[in-house]
């Protein structure tokens, strides 16, 4: 009986979603438009409708850089928790860590990974 609250929550959840979806389907206006079935791509016209052509590796490089700095933040969290214990030594270590990552960013910048107007020869 201890989990009766959880069970009722499940029932309410399922009931509410069924009710809301069926209400929407019953009461909503139905119009056929070509844009309704059009795949959404960031508000720009679709590049190709088969999604099987190659796309530029610039996307890949930007994604990689984003991932890199995501991971950097993940590394900074445990440091921030024990910051007061580590003192000056910990500050210097993290400063070096960030410095090295910054050099990585500068490198990517200099090599043209951040230029959005790609020139095939520069990459």
């Amino acid at each position, binding site marked *: 009986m201890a989990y009766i609250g959880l069970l009722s929550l499940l029932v309410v959840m399922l009931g509410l979603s069924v009710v809301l979806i069926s209400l929407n389907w019953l009461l909503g206006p139905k119009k056929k438009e070509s844009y309704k079935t059009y795949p959404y791509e960031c508000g720009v016209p679709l590049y190709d409708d088969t999604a099987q052509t190659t796309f530029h590796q610039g996307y890949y490089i930007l994604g990689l850089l984003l991932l890199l700095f995501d991971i950097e933040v993940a590394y900074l969290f445990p440091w921030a928790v*024990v910051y007061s*214990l*580590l003192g000056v*030594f910990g500050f210097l270590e993290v400063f070096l860590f960030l410095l090295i990552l910054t*050099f990585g960013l*500068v*490198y990517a910048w*200099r090599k043209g990974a951040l230029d959005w107007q790609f020139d095939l020869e520069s990459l």
Partner: protein
Amino acid sequence: MGIRLLLGSTNLYELKYLLPEIVVFLGAFALFLLDIVMKSSETKKKLFLWISVLFLSLSVLSFLYKPEFFKDVFSGTYTVDTLGIFSKLFEIILTLLTLPFLHTYMTKKNTFYYEIYYITFLSLLGMMTLSSSYNLVVIYVSLEMVSVSFYIMTALFRGSFVSKEGAYKYLIIGGISIIIALYGAAFMYGASKSLDIRAIMSSYNPQNALYLIVGMILFLLAFAIKIGIIPFHFWLPDAYTGAPTPITGFMASAGKLAFFIPLLRLVPYVNQHLYSSWMISVSIMAALTMIVGNALALVQADLKRLLAYSSIAHSGYILSVLSSNSSMGLKAAIYFVFVYSIMGLGSFLVLSVLEQSDTWDNQIYKIGGLYRNTGFLSLSFAVFLFALLGIPPTVGFVGKALVFLGLAIKNIYWLGFVLILATAISTGYYVRLVMLMFTKDAEIRIKPEYDILENLSIGLLVVLTLVLGMFPFILWNGISNISEFLFRLANLR
């Protein structure tokens, strides 16, 4: 406060024991900054070569300052000892000999990347830390450092499909190897509650025996993948063929040397309880590698692939002698690793000079009559091939004889006979190459150009191959002491 305690025990003055490593790291950093600041030009290419040579020479010179010959620094995670110093010196010198070839190769093939210089430096740094630690975590980190650099260096060949394919295979299988090493390390840590290989192996007792053996074998298998031992060798010929040839030489010499060192350090600590499982796994892999590697090399039509398979077979020779965990066996293994790094690098470097001419495409028949085209190159190639085969005046003979002695001292004669059989198989392709070079008419016209640095480095390798073969005691005395010392330390525990 555990953290305070840990920080208190970090002695920064111990950095003086890491002087060569620090010089190599500074070299990598200087090259990196220079690459960011400077625009690409002919002067920059020359400058990169000379700065690399300068920093590597400084690193060699920094070995003159040696505070102590044996010391555990940084709470025992880093060991300064003669084996480490010796192998680090070898790795730096081998890199130094490779760099001029890398420069001309990339210029001629029009695939110049400045990154390759500092990636070479970083992989060298990884090799140096790999050669001087007993700590599982340090070994893991430096293994990754070397491997990731190798993946990148394999892929750095503009517009070549083979290069990308080789790098991809290397990446996937190298990743698997790292996972297996970590799995083994977890077992070893669980069995002994220590990360130091010496403490782990001497913590043997009947309760933790199973975990210890599983951990040890998994660790061995991970290194077997990295070195290219036969059931796990599939990436090696592709990666070696895909990489720019000087890089292939670098991977086959300095890289193989560095990957072998942790295994060599493990050998004295394999006690009589662990010996039977160690012996079985090592000797089966070694016998397979020697026979199959040489048999596969026999049927290759591509010269670079042939040398790659020959490199696999040589890993088998070195691994075979690890099965006899005696002082003599360890001496033979260390000797053969150093010796193979000399002759392997030499053969790949000769190939890299040949590859620079347009008519050359690595097919074996193209080597026909090479002597008519270029006397110096074909003579030095013949010296390296004879050394790889193990003909007396060269250093390869000494290595193979020592391996046989090391096996005989523990009565592992069957492996010794496999070694002789494998050598007999290998005679087929080495001698065929020499015969093609010297007796046939010229197949193609090759006019190889090499500058003074390249001439010097091939010349030095040839001289080393011959002189160390005629006077083996130059290297032997040092190695003999190293091996005795490692065994004495292991017995003290």
